């Protein structure tokens, strides 16, 4: 099992969720996050003076999938979240040791 964390543009959340649901992914966790990458935020204008907004609002999507589904899931997220402009976000994959469904006690891939 792997955890896939995708930091995406907030307005792309619906597209990503739709695409993943259609591919049979049944659950995900999302959170509001702020951050920046290579572009170092963006600049805004206030009363004739430019200023840099360091931390831009992003959405982090977290989901856990079976090892065999990792590559296809990543492709789905990229397709749905990509605008081609800077700030589209990143995807991180990390191993998961154990998963338990609280209601039934099912474990690992049965619990995803």
């Amino acid at each position, binding site marked *: 099992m792997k955890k896939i964390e995708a930091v995406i543009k907030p307005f792309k959340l619906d597209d990503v969720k739709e695409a993943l649901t259609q591919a049979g992914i049944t659950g995900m966790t999302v959170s509001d996050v*702020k951050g920046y990458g290579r572009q170092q935020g963006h600049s*805004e*204008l*206030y*009363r*004739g*003076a*430019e*200023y840099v907004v360091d*931390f831009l609002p992003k959405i982090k999507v977290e989901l856990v999938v079976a090892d065999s589904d990792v590559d296809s899931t990543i492709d789905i997220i990229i397709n749905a979240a990509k605008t081609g402009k800077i700030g589209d976000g990143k995807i991180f994959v990390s191993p998961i040791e154990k998963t338990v469904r609280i209601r039934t006690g099912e474990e690992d891939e049965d619990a995803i």
Partner: protein
Amino acid sequence: MDLQSINYVIDTFFAIFTMTLIIFMVPGFAMLEAGLVRTKNVSAVLMVNTMIYAIASMAFLLFGYSLAFGDFGSDSMSKWAAFLFQMAFVGKAINIMSGGVSERAKVIPLAIFTVIMGAVIYPIIVNWSWGSNMLEGTFLELSMYDLAGSTVIHSTGGWALLAAIIIIGARRGRYSEEGVIRVIPASNIPLVTLGAFLLWIGWFGFNGGSVGSISSKESADAVALTIMNTNTAGLAGSIIVGIIMYFQYKKLDITMILNGALGGLVAITAGPNLYNIYTPILVGAIGGVIVVIGVSFFDKLKLDDPVGALSVHLLNGIWGTLAVGIFANNGDDITFLGQLKGVVVVGLFAFVVSFIVLFVINKIVPLRADRDEEMQGLDVDECGLEAYPEFKRAF
């Protein structure tokens, strides 16, 4: 009822109605300032606005009105209405000053200054210009025309603010030691817009009511022209700032556009009844240009004014008073030099006396919040109540 009584009733009603419009500027200032400061200082700003309105008006009732006008009296309307109309102005003059020191000045010393401003400083200026004129016959006697107070109210408040900013200093972190200007953006643009338009509407009472009478055909015309010209200057101020912003930055900064409208409104306030219907376009547009130049000018001088009151009220109060000398068509009574003299005499008095009073107050009760209090936001220490308790701060 005879005609004289009817006129008396109508003018009384007019004074009370326009006074009510002017009081709408209290929430106007409050919302404008609440939107332009950071969320951690919003309760404190609103509290200062409320307290200052109450204290200044009370000081004017107990001391100021008599100092300005000699006694309670009016033949053409109820003397209580005449008082109420004048009282409505006092809070404006002091509010201009309190807005520009937001986010770092404490309310107790500001309240002490408000007592002195409402009881003595402002009434003396009114005495010279609209009241019983204690300067009559001296070489300082004012001959300036200032219908609703471009100088008497707006510049006076602006000079007091300038004195206060010099004594109090900038908000922490606003200007770095290397001279970099750090922008502190507004927290709530909808509130800024609401506040600006409440002020705009209040201005119709501010200027319209200052004509003094509406009970004859001629005075009704004068009131309507005054309000029309007031509105025109606000329109011109906002449009010109929009155009300048777009050509300079390719962005239409809403807070600057609203400040441009207010700058135009301040500029027209000295003589809205004296212009034809087209001159206010020019007076208001120049007022807007002055705001754009003024905001960055004061920033370069490191005079930190979160709401832009120095540009809107001080600079445009001066400009509006001089504009009457340039554009107004009212015989030989009004001269540019007469207007300039009014600006200088009132300006010197307002700035020097405010500076001395604030300096003394500052020695006894420091005007400035201490470092921790300012970093945490004045809401917690001054009010015990955050305006937005569930709001997560970015920094």
